[in-house]
């Protein structure tokens, strides 16, 4: 029998796949265009301007590290540390409280309760900024309803302090953590608990050896997200405490608007650059944690 002249069928498939892959590219062009316009250009401009020093006498710009070094010293360093401190504290508290509430929801196995808490958390997680600040002032401010009702002023409590900010931030961060951590808690299979029990493990041993280690990447990922959220928040603190609690976001706003000194726009950009660097560090920590968590809880 003569050799067949028909080409083998298999090479067609890779060709088709390659063509299909080429055809998919246009679909993501709008996304990359959006990314370039809304993130790439501002970030590039920010990085460039942060390293440009304006001579106050001539108004001319030249490359230099003055803005960056100023942004990391004196009151600005205090603001940066204040933001880091506030973000760390609220992130830890929101992670713990959010995880406990979410676990209670998972344990309850009542779908109505779960729906109600998830819906409420979705709403509260987005209730931040100036409206939240005004809500807190109306309830826990100097003449707030709850302050008068419980006579809180006698205890020395003041909303317009670091502690007050922590309370206000937790108001939207705890629900955000609940929404964030629920899928991970759902991923803890009942059969793992049963398998651990059949091996002789108590409930505590299960959580110590299996539950918490499996949840750790998700919890850390959630904490990192909480940190980022608190770190970037501005409006709530601006309305509630103004400049009385030093935070980097307030200082950036002041420098940009010329509230304290004029001509400090590039210093504001240098402070923003510091924030971008911290945000990138946060993302660098979160991505591998999230990847591990996804693999375990898939």
């Amino acid at each position, binding site marked *: 029998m003569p050799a067949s002249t028909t080409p083998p069928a298999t090479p067609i498939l890779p060709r088709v796949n390659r063509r299909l892959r080429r055809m998919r590219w246009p679909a993501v062009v709008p996304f990359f265009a959006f990314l370039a316009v809304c993130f790439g250009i501002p970030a590039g401009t920010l990085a460039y301007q942060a390293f440009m020093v304006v001579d106050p006498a001539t108004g001319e710009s030249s490359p230099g590290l003055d803005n960056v070094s100023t942004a990391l010293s004196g009151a600005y360093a205090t603001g940066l540390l204040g933001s880091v401190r506030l973000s760390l504290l609220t992130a830890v508290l929101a992670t713990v409280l959010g995880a406990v509430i979410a676990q209670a929801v998972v344990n309850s196995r009542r779908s109505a309760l779960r729906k109600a808490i998830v819906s409420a958390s979705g709403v509260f997680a987005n209730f931040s900024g100036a409206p939240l600040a005004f809500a807190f002032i109306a309830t826990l401010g100097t003449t707030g309803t709850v302050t008068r009702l419980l006579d809180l002023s006698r205890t020395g409590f003041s909303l317009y302090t670091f502690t007050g900010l922590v309370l206000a931030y937790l108001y939207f961060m705890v629900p955000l953590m609940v929404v964030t951590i629920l899928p991970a808690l759902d991923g803890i299979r009942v*059969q793992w608990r*049963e*398998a651990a*029990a*059949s*091996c*002789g*493990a108590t409930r505590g041993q299960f959580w110590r050896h299996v539950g918490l280690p499996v949840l750790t990447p998700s919890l850390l990922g959630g904490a990192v997200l909480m940190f980022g959220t608190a770190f970037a928040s501005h409006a709530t603190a601006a309305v509630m405490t103004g400049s009385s609690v030093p935070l980097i976001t307030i200082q950036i706003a002041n420098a940009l608007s010329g509230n304290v000194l004029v001509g400090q726009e590039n210093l504001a950009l240098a402070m923003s650059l510091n924030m971008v660097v911290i945000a990138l560090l946060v993302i660098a920590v979160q991505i591998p944690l999230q990847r591990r968590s996804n693999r375990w*809880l*898939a």
Partner: protein
Amino acid sequence: MTSNAPIAKRRTAPDATGVPVTLRGVRRAFGRTTALDGLDLDFAPGELVALLGPSGCGKTTALRILAGFETADEGEVLMDGEDVADVPANRRDIGMVFQSYSLFPNMTAAENVGYGMRVRGAGRRERRERAAELLALVGLPGREGHYPHQLSGGQQQRVALARALAVRPRVLLFDEPLSALDAKVRLQLREEIRRIQLESGITTVFVTHDQEEALSLADRVAVMRDGRLEQCAPPAELYARPATPFVAEFVGTMNRIPGTVRGGGEVEALGRRLPVHGSAPAEGTEVDVLLRPEEIAVRAAADGTATVQVATFLGGLTRLGLRTEAGLEVKADLPSREAAALAPGARCTLVPHDGAVLVADRSAAG
């Protein structure tokens, strides 16, 4: 329902470590749904009993009550003569293998296997040695350092089996452990489970809805329906002498042939009078006679009352799909050499065997 007394252990190793297990009058309801309705079942030391039945028959609930993951509303669960109703799952000394493997994802294969020893305070070296020994036993030597996501489904289930064995349990429980695996792996692992169970001699309860799995694996098969035990018997007995029409139809293939009860404990079907197994209904009652495909002889005959519709070659046997002039569909198994003369379209006569037959209410199919 027939006796569920355990048969003498025939195939376990002499150093069998199994204990007797008894479920006595166990009742369990979930809301208005009764999952177990007074289940009585005895398991002999070292015996492997398969719980078989359709979905919702209560087999998994029975297993979970044995494991301590569910509590019975009524009744007793005895292990080695001790009522364990109030003993929590982690103190029952049971090993359990789940359908979905349920390996701890943050631990390697060796750590999973050694987990039970870890919570019992065994040293790291002892755990490592035992894990290596058990992983070799289940055919996974050298995989100690692999995480569950680096193993196939079959390999994960082998690790789960090793983990269940590691604590030297008094009772081994399997909850449909093979149903998530592909056919080839299922067959391999089934044989492995049986080999290891025989070697260890641990009393084993194996839940499955796959009758072939149950019949090929178990010393006895307990067929359940609606939370009750229909019959518990060795596979051959279950197939050859089903106690109820449900068991007869659930296990293997069964034909329902219309018949009429005659005097003397006989029933007339396919033109013949056959003795009825057990007590016969009143004379004149219209019933269905239950006949297995191999209990019907098929003879080629030009003036026969049935026609061959389809012939399926199964190796030594050929299964014929037949239709009678009355429109009745019948399946019959013949040695393949005899079936060669019965091609589709051929006319034939159907002759039931001479033995006693089960009869069922004509309206009670299934």
